[in-house]
């Protein structure tokens, strides 16, 4: 094998930057790769994650979960559990205040409070295998577990509904008697499992398909998949004797936890303080509360002891949010010139036990990379007897792109066109209209296509039997949201940065870097920390690819404000106007006067009040993200197993603040997309029992399943951010499944329409193809 320096596994970076960045681009700090401030604690085991919290007198809480997918609860008897020595409290849904059916925006996405409450502890029905029924606090986790076994629940079994299409059937068993289909404000007139229907429509479909020279129509099936964060949910709550509540929890959004706990327990937020611990992965799955309100109830009932609750992996997989399984139908037509003439999409997403699948997002993603005149998308949010779906990295995007991007690949095949050429013909650019209506501002989609087209991966021939190369593109909206932060100037010239965005993948660094850049000081002088809900103003969750963008914008503003304040103070000292002071390269000067940043800080410290600035932002200028990926695979036609030979991802990242962590986001998203594409799925039996609730049989990729992942950071700066930042975390999970499907087709000639494309399924597809070939024509 020849040595390609870019693929040398030892040399730090494997990727490249193209576009306007290509280096530091006049920046001092942005674009460099400093060490993260929390790194040492994380490589030495000192960092404190959710389960690492230990308070004196702590009790251990455990949850009893439903062994059934769908059943009415006739009776719960907790008396034997309560009598077990060491048990301090037992709670059931009867301990939850009754909340009205009210849709509330709780940080990210709206949810009906009644559903939220019912998901914490089932009130009258259990709606999925693993649904919580009761909780116990005891002096040891083992005693708590023993107590669970003493709780007696009487069930009336009901038939389960296990996928979107059967849930939509006329005679399907109904999960929620009061659920009616919402069609933008109009409620249906009968009980249903279809919570809502949405539609995007433009142009003339019939004319569009009539103008097509080739039409491809396919249907697709995908299973629920889990975020798979390595740290299980963990929360400790103290309901103090004075009614004040403190919650230590591993969460993407401490403010959202505060809000959810307040609403569901009917307690004012002013009595709740949420202290985020380090968070061991989330990917959208650590936004909803599962343990926190229950731990608060137990703490109160147990006599104001702290109660610590830690899920095990079985519970995480059974009862915390997977993302939706789905049924999708895509019909697309194109003319001989390679232009898409029409597209029609039907998508039904499994919401799990309560409404709220990401079908809206999926509908926005599915055709987003393309310029279309005639289109219709219908999306349905459907409840089934599975855990309530939660956000998962570009929610709803991967399965949507799997459908549309493989149909596009088939169109290309029929037209005899290179799939990247096809995308250059149809790809969206600034001024084009998205499928859901709005017009794109500056985007870098076409640049990602060109970056792959020019990449040595794509230009290198792929040789060998049963090998294939596939490409696919993806889109994600990204998000702004609300952020706040403060910065204090210390006498030695260091700056303490206090922010409220939990750091899930290096954002302390990327946010501190923006403050350093803005203030003109070295990164090492900024000391960032993530704080609790009492110590900074509201922050939306770390999610939606918003943190480096929005909290980073706050940090930029802090830098500007701090600089202005320092200028004002020095002007006072030097008896001049702030505008008259020159600040460059960390040096303030005015006439003969010169002070380095550090000296200036010391001088300001000695001569007056301390300097602290704060800022809050709610930026609108969100830049969406696009990516194009290429993958080479080899398929063993006798076993159906896929080996990934090479993977390259090009992405419009706006501006890479800390390129290592941008690459890391792409690596991680690709890895999750590959897992989704090849092996990850929830496996249920006919009664709705989840069969594979462990890391043994819920197969996330190991180090041996992945190659190095090449990245191309295309930098098309986002005009809505002073440094051009776009969210980068989500879009990389969108294309992989489709890219793999397209590569598998080229390797062994089967078009896969089911996720995951497990060896068994590929084998069956190969058999089906062989059987077809044998049939007389």
């Amino acid at each position: 094998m020849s040595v390609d320096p870019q693929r040398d596994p030892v040399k730090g970076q494997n990727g490249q930057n193209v576009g306007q960045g290509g280096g530091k681009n006049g920046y001092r700090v942005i674009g460099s790769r400093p060490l993260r401030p929390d790194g040492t604690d994380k490589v030495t085991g000192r960092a404190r994650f959710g389960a690492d919290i230990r308070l004196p007198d702590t009790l251990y809480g455990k949850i009893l979960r439903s062994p059934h997918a769908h059943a009415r609860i006739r009776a719960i008897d907790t008396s034997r559990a309560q009598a077990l020595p060491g048990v301090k409290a037992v709670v059931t849904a009867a301990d939850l205040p009754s909340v009205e059916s009210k849709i509330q925006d709780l940080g990210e996405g709206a949810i009906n409070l009644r559903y939220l409450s019912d998901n914490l502890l089932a009130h009258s029905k259990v709606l999925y295998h693993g649904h919580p029924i009761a909780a116990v606090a005891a002096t040891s986790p083992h005693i708590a577990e023993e107590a669970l076994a003493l709780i007696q629940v009487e069930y009336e079994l009901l038939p389960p509904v296990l996928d979107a299409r059967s849930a939509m059937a006329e005679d399907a068993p109904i999960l929620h008697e009061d659920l009616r289909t919402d069609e933008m404000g109009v409620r249906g007139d009968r009980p249903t499992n279809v919570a809502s229907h949405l539609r995007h429509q433009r142009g003339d479909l019939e004319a569009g398909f009539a103008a097509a020279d080739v039409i491809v129509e396919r249907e697709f099936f995908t299973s629920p998949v889990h975020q798979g964060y390595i740290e299980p949910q963990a929360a400790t709550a103290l309901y103090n004797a004075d009614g004040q509540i403190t919650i230590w929890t591993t969460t993407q959004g401490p403010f959202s936890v505060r809000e959810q706990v307040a609403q569901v327990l009917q307690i004012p937020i002013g009595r709740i303080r949420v202290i985020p611990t380090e968070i061991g992965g989330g990917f959208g799955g650590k936004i909803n509360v599962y343990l926190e309100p229950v731990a608060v109830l137990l703490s109160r009932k147990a006599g104001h002891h702290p109660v610590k609750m830690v899920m095990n992996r079985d519970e995480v997989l059974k009862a915390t949010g997977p993302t939706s399984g789905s049924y999708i139908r895509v019909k697309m037509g194109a003319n001989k010139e390679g232009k898409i003439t029409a597209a029609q999409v039907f998508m039904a997403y499994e919401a799990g036990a309560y409404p709220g699948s990401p079908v809206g997002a999926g509908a926005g993603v599915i055709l987003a990379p393309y310029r279309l005149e005639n289109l219709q998308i219908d999306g349905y949010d459907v409840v089934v007897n599975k855990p309530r779906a939660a956000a998962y990295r570009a929610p709803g995007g991967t399965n949507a792109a799997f459908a549309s991007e493989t149909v596009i690949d088939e169109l290309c095949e029929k037209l005899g066109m290179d799939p990247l050429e096809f995308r250059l013909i149809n790809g969206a650019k600034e001024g084009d209209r998205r499928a859901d209506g709005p017009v794109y501002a500056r985007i870098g989609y076409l640049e990602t296509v060109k970056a792959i087209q020019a990449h040595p991966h794509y230009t290198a021939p792929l040789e060998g039997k049963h090998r294939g190369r596939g490409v696919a593109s993806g889109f994600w909206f990204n998000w702004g949201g609300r952020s706040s932060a403060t910065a204090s100037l210390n006498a030695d010239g260091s700056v303490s940065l206090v922010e409220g965005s939990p750091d899930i993948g290096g954002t302390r660094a990327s946010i501190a870097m923006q403050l350093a850049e803005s203030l003109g000081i070295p990164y090492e002088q900024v000391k960032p920390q993530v704080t609790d809900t009492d110590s900074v103003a509201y922050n939306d969750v770390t999610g939606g690819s918003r943190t480096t963008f929005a909290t980073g914008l706050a940090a930029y503003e802090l830098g500007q404000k701090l600089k202005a304040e320092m200028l004002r103070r020095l002007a006072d000292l030097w008896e001049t106007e702030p505008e008259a002071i020159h600040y460059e390269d960390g040096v303030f000067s005015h006439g003969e006067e010169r002070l380095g940043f550090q000296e200036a800080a010391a001088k300001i410290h000695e001569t007056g009040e301390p300097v602290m600035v704060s800022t809050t932002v709610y930026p609108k200028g969100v830049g969406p993200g696009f990516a194009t990926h290429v993958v080479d695979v080899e398929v063993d036609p006798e076993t159906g197993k896929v080996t990934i030979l090479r993977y390259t991802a090009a992405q419009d990242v706006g501006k890479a603040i800390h390129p290592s962590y941008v690459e890391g986001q792409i690596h991680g998203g690709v890895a999750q997309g590959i897992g989704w594409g090849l092996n990850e799925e929830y496996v249920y039996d006919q009664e709705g029992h989840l069969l594979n609730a462990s890391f043994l049989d819920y197969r996330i990729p190991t180090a041996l399943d992945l190659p190095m992942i090449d990245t191309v950071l295309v930098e098309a700066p986002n005009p809505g951010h002073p440094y051009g930042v776009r969210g980068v975390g989500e879009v990389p999970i969108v294309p992989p499944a489709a890219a793999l499907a397209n590569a598998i087709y080229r390797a062994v000639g089967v078009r896969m329409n089911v996720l995951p494309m497990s060896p068994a399924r590929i084998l069956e597809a190969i058999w089906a193809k062989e059987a077809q070939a044998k049939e007389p024509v």
Partner: protein
Amino acid sequence: MPSKVMVSTHLNGQEVTFLCEPRQTLLEVLREELGLTGSKEGCGNGNCGACNVLLDGVLVNSCLVLAVETEGRTVTTIEGLTPPDQLLPIQQKFLEHAALQCGVCTPGFIVSAQALLEQNPQPTEGEVRRWLAGNLCRCTGYDKIVRAVLDTAQTLAGNSAQDSDQEVGG
């Protein structure tokens, strides 16, 4: 209350005696009784490696060891592996390569990678991946982790090559 057993073990270079129930795993005792929370529980059944420790120098999942089994044996956790005055080269390389995002799997990876390098100072990429396949990471796609391990090996080899050069020269 179930009866407890007294266990003496060499833990991170010290003689430690603790009381535990036979049903408590080594991981539980480390974390809940001894305050050593660097070893993490990601799965509890040996499928993720986040709880990796060395038992008599052998890499094991501490969630699959009963604490009573460690009587008279030597246990090294991430806390004991880290030298008092500086980071191990593998830890430093993890930082430099940004080989961690959320960081919860990191202690397990460090313990595992360090055990690899002691046994096989010059592993190939394939050997690194095979060795680390029992450690799950959901954030990084393993790319930067594998690079960090290979780079550590290369750096250590460079250093020892320099050392031996000097010995020859001197």
